[in-house]
């Protein structure tokens, strides 16, 4: 198997303003308009939430589930930097960008969901923090993570872009890169501690739900199961994006690296499944899974999807089949997302007579923020070196960009160009 992923290369040969892109822009715009409506009318008219189900999909899905999908930077980063799986470095840019977008918009959704967002400024005064609140921990860690380490990790592709487009800036970019390189290990380590903290605290959120969370989910190990699920979701989601690049944009794929991702993901899923069953057995709740009710049904759907995903992940590596890899990654994402979502809503029963179903506006706002994330990713992948490719492809892209710079309007004057060619 030849090595096809050597460095990040922009998807330079595909137009940006496509039909998909326009649809995504439309959905995003609609979502943003509805956010304005929500801010004026209040949460009641805009959502299906009520005093019993006080949390709706904005928090439970966009913040609590989608940031788990955006844990690629955390999970793959740990494999690459801590466990020294050096061949995974080439997919890190895909991971850090998808993570950044998932987190940024997860936080935006949190801001839309809370009733009195103007009081968030207390986050700047640590002596007002209630450190025992899992939500405080989530809010502080996520904001800090997305705005510092995750943001910094996304700067190199942007610098690469300007290095190519603006030869007159090359010297300053090189200087800046030296600074970034010097601080990188410190930043990267922070990028693993913070998600480990808040991804587990997302699980701890539901601990305070107490008996209202079904015993199939309510366990002292909820934080650990949550962060572990985030780890395999991160792997699966990045694999899915990489394979979508292959399906949609005809990018070459590197079976060696994909196999490595799938193999690690498989072990993470396997260990998680075993741990979940052991936890249920030790707590004496395993029989709850065999009752004839909705919670038990949800449990078996989750476990079933992830068990199938586990075996599919294995066969995909054995067969070296990108198609099976794609399906298994999707299955892993679905199973993991269900696990992260269920205890917050479907397996959460605050009162007998209470019910919650997201309103149309809630769904459209949620979709709007997701569309915004996807369209920014698509745009970035076409302009910046994000998705992995071969050195040959990189040379082609460079030659193409030299003829047609993206920043045509910012192209340096002839004199500046001559000055830089000297180095």
């Amino acid at each position: 198997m030849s090595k096809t992923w050597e460095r990040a290369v922009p998807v330079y040969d595909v137009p940006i303003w496509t039909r998909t892109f326009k649809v995504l822009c439309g959905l995003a715009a609609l979502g943003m308009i509805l956010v304005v409506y929500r801010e004026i009318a209040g949460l009641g008219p805009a959502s299906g939430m009520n005093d019993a189900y006080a949390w709706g999909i904005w928090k439970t899905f966009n913040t609590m589930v989608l940031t788990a999908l955006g844990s690629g930077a955390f999970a793959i980063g740990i494999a690459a930097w801590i466990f020294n799986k050096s061949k995974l470095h080439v997919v890190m840019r895909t991971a850090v960008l998808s993570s950044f977008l998932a987190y940024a918009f997860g936080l935006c959704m949190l801001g839309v969901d809370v009733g009195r967002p103007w009081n968030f400024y207390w986050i700047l005064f640590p002596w007002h923090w209630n450190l025992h609140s899992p939500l405080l921990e989530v809010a502080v860690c996520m904001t800090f993570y997305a705005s510092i380490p995750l943001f910094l990790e996304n700067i190199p592709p942007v610098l690469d872009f300007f290095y190519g487009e603006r030869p007159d800036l090359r010297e300053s970019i090189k200087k800046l890169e030296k600074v970034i390189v010097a601080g990188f290990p410190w930043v990267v380590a922070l990028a693993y501690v913070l998600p480990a903290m808040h991804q587990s605290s997302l699980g701890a959120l539901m601990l305070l739900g107490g008996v209202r969370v079904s015993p199939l989910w309510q366990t002292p190990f909820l934080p650990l199961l949550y962060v572990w699920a985030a780890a395999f979701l991160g792997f699966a989601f990045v694999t899915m994006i990489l394979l979508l690049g292959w399906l949609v944009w005809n990018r070459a794929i590197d079976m060696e690296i994909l196999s490595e991702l799938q193999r690690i993901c498989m072990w993470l899923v396997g260990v998680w499944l075993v741990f979940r069953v052991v936890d249920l057995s030790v707590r004496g709740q395993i029989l709850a899974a065999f009752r004839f009710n909705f919670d038990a049904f949800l449990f078996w759907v989750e476990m079933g999807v992830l068990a199938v995903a586990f075996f599919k992940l294995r066969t995909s590596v054995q067969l070296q089949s990108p198609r099976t890899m794609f399906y298994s990654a999707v299955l892993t994402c679905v199973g993991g997302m269900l696990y992260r979502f269920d205890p917050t809503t479907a397996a959460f029963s605050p009162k007998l007579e209470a019910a919650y179903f997201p309103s149309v506006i809630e769904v459209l706002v949620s979709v709007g923020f997701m569309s915004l994330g996807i369209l920014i990713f698509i745009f970035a992948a076409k302009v910046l070196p994000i998705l992995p490719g071969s050195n040959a492809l990189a040379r082609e892209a460079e030659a193409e960009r030299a003829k047609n710079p993206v920043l045509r309007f910012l192209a340096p004057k002839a004199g500046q160009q001559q000055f830089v060619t000297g180095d």
Partner: protein
Amino acid sequence: MDITRREVLHQIAVGGAGVAAGGAISAVALTEVAHAEEGGVPPEAVGMLYDATKCIGCQTCVVACTAANGLTPDTRYDALHQTPGDLNNHTKTIIKLYKEVDGKETSFVKQQCMHCLEPACVAACMFGGLKKDATTGIVSWRGKYCVGCRYCQVACPYNVPKFRWEGFNPEIVKCEFCKERLAKGQEPACTTVCPKKAVIFGKREDLLKEAKQRIAANPGKYYEDRVFGEKEAGGTQVFYLSHVPFDKILPEPGDESVPGKYLKWQKRLYSYLVVPAGLYAVLVGSIRKNWKGHEEHMEHEEKETGLRAQL
């Protein structure tokens, strides 16, 4: 290139020092918050005692509560009667009737904030929007610090805090023992108006004695001879006496407080941020060790391919 064990340890130590300093500062700042949250009965704890056997269900307390707290009466059902379906943002207390369909056994029940000794809502609250008073033990809402996240609603074992769902400036609404009336030397509205003295106000310890006296004086009258609230959810400042099983009229959360039971490990894990700081130090050491190899690899690739190294 090789790196010795000593160098790794050194790096870990260097990494740890900075973090430890930061951790120490935040730890000092946060100890205060931690203290405020520990359980125990506040010195001047006030409370209420509701005796379901005395209540006649007249709902005078509901009406008086609405008036005393400046709330709009909840007439959403038919625009004619004040008939709230449950506690809500117009209703800080409510009288419900427990009666099975074939019911011989019936009981009224007054619901309101229990003012727990270790409140789950306060443990959940990010910036102290809900705070338990250190002397009186009254749990009250402070809009200045409330973000409107509604975690208190998810956490409260009695489903008490209610949210105003309409409008751009929502609030959390719950019983605060009419603290403005208390400040003026008056009793809460509901205990003042109750014609049967089914609900009475007083110091928590006096009310507990009173409840136990009633049980002693009337053997067999009260369910399990139990004062609900003495131990439930870690103890509350509102007590209940009932002739019907408590789980028919109230949630039965068990004796342990919700934060005490469910956040035990969370608290240990984050106490003084020692664990996160240690983890950070180890990770920095490990990444710096692997960093050298990565850098050399990048330089090598750059020379070989002529393409700029990518971080």
